[in-house]
């Protein structure tokens, strides 16, 4: 599903306009969300061990829910920390 991008390529008017990124889990070559894929999950977890909000990572709402589930499973298995002190 293409995300409508109102590209401000004539961005001289709005200098702080950022192009809206599309969801990293949508599209043909999107990675599968898997609680065993630490390399993937770690990109969506902060240094402190908290999940990064989707408004920053641009993950869609549905995929963010799936991602949250995967992170929680990984935490339960002590693959990811609950909190980094």
């Amino acid at each position, binding site marked *: 599903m293409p995300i409508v991008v109102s590209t401000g390529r004539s961005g001289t008017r709005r200098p702080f306009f950022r192009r809206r990124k599309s969801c990293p889990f949508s599209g043909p070559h999107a990675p599968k969300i*898997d609680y*065993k*894929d630490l*390399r993937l999950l770690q*990109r969506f977890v902060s240094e402190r061990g908290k999940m990064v909000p989707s408004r920053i990572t641009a993950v869609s709402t549905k995929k963010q829910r799936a991602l949250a589930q995967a992170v929680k499973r990984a935490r339960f298995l002590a693959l990811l*920390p*609950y909190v980094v002190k």
Partner: protein
Amino acid sequence: MAFYENVFIARQEISAAQVDGLADQFTAVLSENGGAVKKKEYWGLKSLAFRIKKNRKGHYVLLNIDAPPAAVHELERQMRINEDILRFLTVRVDELEEGPSAMLQARGREDRPRRFDDRPRRYEDRGHRAESVQPATTEE
């Protein structure tokens, strides 16, 4: 029959051979109850992100299971009893994945670490100027 993924963590003190024995034991439990293990993966002795029952490390084993719910129920009961098992997680999945899981694929790539992001780094991004950049030691 339904598909399940089961990951269990065994105590760090036991040997890899004993972990194998545990896995065989659980496989037997499943087959007695009409199930089957489609794939077994040993992830090795990994360090835990936090301590579980005073353990800092644990043997991780993944079992891909095709079994009726009753067999999985029995498997989980056995795991709860077994003191060598620190923790286990059983997840129902729509289909079992073929080939090695993401965990083992990451293992193969470890000798060739890759960057997570594609953010251009200073020197590489400069391209033509990169060669002319002097090492920091020669500067003031």
